[in-house]
């Protein structure tokens, strides 16, 4: 499964502080530690603060130390545009997080996705908000696929995020999410990504809930997750699940992780 490292996010107070202080060494350290832990993408979010200016800085200093592809996490077309302009190397590697069926995002962010031919996260959300049922989310997913197809977009680059809602709010939220996973993958044959942690909102022992939710999602063939790769227990779950799900030939990665002492009981 593809791992998008979530640490460089301005909604984390300590990281927001580092961004505001322009503490390049600390940010670069956080980037490199996520890469070492197995992140395939590094998520960058500067929404809390002077977004466009901070995004330009963040992209630049992260790319000084690693060429891991970046995931630009913003609702602002201006911030995404600035990030794309700043990125060195292959800009078509940048994962744009995200578009949705909201008119503003379609009008402003989608053109950037098409221009740079980037992979993109598509949220099942429109101007009426987040739908309550799996069926309605399927409808939104179909609409998004239709719009992208019309624009000759390569659907292999699309990651739909069916938006997890807290299990504390409705005890059917996780199963509804699994339903979305199954239907979207079967009918539309596109990839699925999730941020996971919303599932445990307002529950105790959130990490346990997140980890088990991740395992279940992987059993439903989820393609990518936005998570904290520095959390050894969740990475242990990812690596072990890939092994058990037959996605790790001969357990090569599992055994390598064992020898590198990355696996935690």
């Amino acid at each position, binding site marked *: 499964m593809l791992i998008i490292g979530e640490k460089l996010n301005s909604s984390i107070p300590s990281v927001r502080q580092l961004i505001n202080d322009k503490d390049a060494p600390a940010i670069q350290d956080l980037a490199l530690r996520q890469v070492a832990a197995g992140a395939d993408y590094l998520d960058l979010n500067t929404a809390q603060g002077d977004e466009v200016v901070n995004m330009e800085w963040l992209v630049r200093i992260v790319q000084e130390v690693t060429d891991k592809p970046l995931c630009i996490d913003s609702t602002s077309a201006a911030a995404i545009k600035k990030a794309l302009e700043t990125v060195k190397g292959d800009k078509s590697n940048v994962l744009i997080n995200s578009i949705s069926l909201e008119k503003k995002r379609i009008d402003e962010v989608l053109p950037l996705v098409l221009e740079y031919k980037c992979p993109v996260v598509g949220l099942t959300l429109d101007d009426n908000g987040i739908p309550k049922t799996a069926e309605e989310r399927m409808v939104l997913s179909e609409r998004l696929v239709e719009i992208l197809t019309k624009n000759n977009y390569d659907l292999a680059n699309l990651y739909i995020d069916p938006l997890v809602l807290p299990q504390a709010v409705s005890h059917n939220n996780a199963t509804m999410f699994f339903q979305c996973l199954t239907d979207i993958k079967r009918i539309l044959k596109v990839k699925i990504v999730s941020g996971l942690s919303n599932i445990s909102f307002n529950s105790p022992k959130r990490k346990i809930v997140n980890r088990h939710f991740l395992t279940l999602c992987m059993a439903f063939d989820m393609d990518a997750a936005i998570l904290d790769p520095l959390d050894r227990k969740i990475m242990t779950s990812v690596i072990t699940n890939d092994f058990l799900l037959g996605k790790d*030939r*001969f*357990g*090569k990665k599992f*055994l390598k992780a064992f*020898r590198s002492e990355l696996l935690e009981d």
Partner: protein
Amino acid sequence: MLTDALSIAIAELEEQQVADLIKERLDSGVSPLEIVNSLQQGMAEAGGKFETGEYFLGELIMCGEIMQDSMVILEPLLSGSNAEYKGNIVMGTVKGDIHDLGKNIVVMLLKGSGYNVIDLGVDVSKEKFIEAIKESKAPLVGMSVLLTGCQESMKEIIEGIRAAGLTTKVLIGGNYIDQVVKDYVGADYSAQAATDGVKIADEIFA
């Protein structure tokens, strides 16, 4: 310590890298046999890591598969480059034992080294060994065994081969095989590591 990039790649199970390097070397005119030698060295390294407990079974098997996939490309070229085989070798796991992992690795290495291997499979009877040796006139027969309970069976097969008047050299191999077992069953050579098998064959066919 391995220094050859291809040996390192196969020892580290870097499948794609192995495929790329083989193609690159063939394109630049390196002899297929030399490429096989590099692969063998890497495989021996992986085997060594398995013996010391650093590698696990999955990794040993994966290494064998990479070797096998590589041989699919290299084998036809090999027979072209040294038009004749170095000789015939009969191989099999002895009657009563059905383990073939070790045997298959040795077969693969021997083939890679340019021998024509007649692989009789597992649970092979005295009669089958004798028939194959007679037919191929192989100067060497390799017997594999994993189960300690099959020592008697191996002894019986070797006695049968001798009783049939065949002077073929007998090499026995397996995890618990040592000098004592070799003497007891009446074999000529014994090997514990797959790569020893190749060394012994080279000695006999030299």
